[in-house]
């Protein structure tokens, strides 16, 4: 049986070695051309938010500013389907404010006319989720050159890089002509065919460099912050990224607080458990490792003990 199994193993190894050589020969015969996105795609910029790290907490002022940017800019195209108005309590709004935000929301909630049963709309309530800007995917694509603006509820969890990616994308729009990467290579000289097609916009932080979304934050002062913070493009991008961390993980503060106390509890329990274990095993004279009287430390102790008892040797 071992012989048969050995043959089977050899057969698999042979199939794999054949795969190896055919793969390598194909590669060296016609090496695949590198793509513009391989060379010119950029990793997200660094972004530091109050919610970072194991002790991170939200900066509620910033979340409110980010929410303002979302409602005045992003929400024209992007839905926030998984978040409801009542959740805004987490941003520090009170019940009356939330009620007003919901009923003033620019899109209404689908309902039925109570008299005729026909389709109708009504003002949103705090218990409603944010109504999407488009009734369905077809409508969204029709209004956006056949591109679908993604829902933003989970966006910072659904993209590699999270909030830093959102921030980089929003501030990363730039002119493609003459664009160079860090190594000084010029995109359109190396890849003339990679010119951004019409209706797309060049952004090196986007996976394939060309994104359907036009730059949403274009001028400083696009929104007016109530708390007096200067609304630069960079500031607005940071604020909305912070807000989208909250929409994706409203549990973050609770999680950090619970995690801290549970880990401290477990640490103490483990230390006590370890001491109990030492106590119990002490009696069994445990030496799990292969060590013994010949260890230098033990030899020294033996020598001392023998000297004390006046034993020769």
């Amino acid at each position, binding site marked *: 049986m071992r012989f048969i199994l050995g043959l089977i193993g050899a057969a698999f190894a042979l199939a794999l070695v054949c795969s190896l050589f055919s793969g390598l020969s194909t590669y060296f015969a016609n090496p695949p051309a590198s793509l513009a996105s391989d060379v010119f795609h950029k990793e997200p910029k660094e972004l530091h938010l109050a919610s970072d790290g194991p002790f991170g907490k939200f900066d509620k002022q910033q979340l409110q500013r980010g929410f303002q940017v979302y409602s005045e800019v992003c929400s024209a195209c992007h839905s926030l389907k*998984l978040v409801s108005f009542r959740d805004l309590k987490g941003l520090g709004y009170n019940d009356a404010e939330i009620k007003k935000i919901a009923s003033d929301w620019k899109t209404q909630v689908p309902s039925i006319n109570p008299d005729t049963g026909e389709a109708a709309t009504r003002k949103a309530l705090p218990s409603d989720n944010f109504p999407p800007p488009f009734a369905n995917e077809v409508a969204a694509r029709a209004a956006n050159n056949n591109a679908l603006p993604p829902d933003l509820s989970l966006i910072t969890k659904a993209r590699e890089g999270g909030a830093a990616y959102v921030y980089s994308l929003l501030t990363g729009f730039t002119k493609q002509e003459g664009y160079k990467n860090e190594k000084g290579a010029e995109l359109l000289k190396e890849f003339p065919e990679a010119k951004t097609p019409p209706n797309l916009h060049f952004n090196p932080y986007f996976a394939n460099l060309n994104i359907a979304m036009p730059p949403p934050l274009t001028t400083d002062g696009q929104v007016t912050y109530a708390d007096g913070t200067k609304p630069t493009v960079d500031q607005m991008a940071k604020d909305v990224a912070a807000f989208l961390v909250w929409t994706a993980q409203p549990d973050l503060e609770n999680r950090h607080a619970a995690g801290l106390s549970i880990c401290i509890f477990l640490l103490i329990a483990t230390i006590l*458990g370890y001491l109990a274990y030492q106590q119990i095993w002490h009696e*069994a004279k445990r030496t799990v490792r292969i060590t013994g009287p010949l260890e230098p430390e033990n030899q020294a102790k033996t020598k001392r003990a023998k000297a004390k008892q006046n034993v020769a040797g």
Partner: protein
Amino acid sequence: MSFSWAKPYEPKSKFMQWLDERLPLPRLVYGAVGGGYPVPRNLNIFWNFGVLAGIFLTIQIVTGIVLAMHYTGSTDGAFNSVNQLIMRDVNAGWLLRYAHMNGASFFFIVTYIHIFRGLFYGSYKAPRELVWMLGLVIYLLMMATAFMGYVLPWGQMSYWGAQVITGFFSAFPIVGEPLRIWLLGGYAPDQAALTRFFSLHYLLPFVIAGVVILHIWALHIPGSGNPTGVDVKDEKDTLPFHPFYTAKDGWFAGAFVLLYCLVTFFAPNYLGHPDNYIPANPLATPAHIVPEWYFWPFYAILRSCTFNLFWIDAKLWGVLAMFSSILLLFFLPWLDKSPVRSGSYRPIFKRFFWLLVIDVLILGYVGGAPIVWWRTALGQVAAAYYFLHFLVILPIVSAFETPDPLPSSISESVLHGEAAEAAPLGQTKPRPGSVATAG
């Protein structure tokens, strides 16, 4: 129990006596994990991972049952029920979900360490072949359960993972495609597949629990192995499970659960994939479809086969190689004929063992990363080595290797056969079963 010196159960109270006479459950527990189960005294930290696996199975079942109370198993509702209802509206729902998600990862971490412990110390050898094989059955059930659980949130990776994994079956000639359609209940993953995955994902953990009982039962016939691989000879070689190993398992479980909590609370999405926070979309294929990290080595083996050799095409080679990479472990007790169990006393085997560990880590890295020519080549070499290791190298090494001298007993390995002098003079303490005293 297996050893004549195993203490029989003696009820300490009238009630326990009454119970024991009618239903000897206390006797069973005492003999299994109490003072009535003698365990080799020299177990190292790697023997803690069996108990840990049991702890993580329990965590998964408890969190899973509560999650199922809030989950909606429909293609329209599944994503929202997880990402809005459970994560936002259910009290501590985020904790349940993150604990379950990361619990699966830690269950696999623990199980992999447990399996590699078995590989190094020859835990698969006589008389423990069935313990090993039942363990592999548990592992296969775990893989099926984990895969189906990953489909339930119905995100992009859920959907495309289901598409790819059920696609394996279509590699088999003639029966393959009808089999795949029958398993999915349709031509692509849809409502029928989601419903049956949910049903099976709820069922299989209890099947696992059943096989765990068989695994432990089979283990308790010969008793636990130990790092020397030498059989237990007399009472000096063992300690009762309770309190010695309950104490050791206790603090170590605390330490390991602490590690699990650090990940669950402070980096809950670190081990997952961002694409699974995008709702499933049958019309948009993700750029890189990858399974969860614990399947990466097998995914690498699957993707490594790219050549139509003989009458078998590359896809079928890949699928056969992937299934065989696990199934061959069932033959391990007969592939490795060395009479010495422990790798510590096998100088050549030991080197190949560590080579295997590196090999599997390389396969894992290759399986999780996007395809690049050199990475594919590395994966192919590593996959070929994997098969050669178990099916060719191991049988040859075990036939020709000269093992190092073994200690004549467990207590000798622990005490160097010099019980009286094992501790510094004047400091020897009496211990259970000790005959020697300080002189």
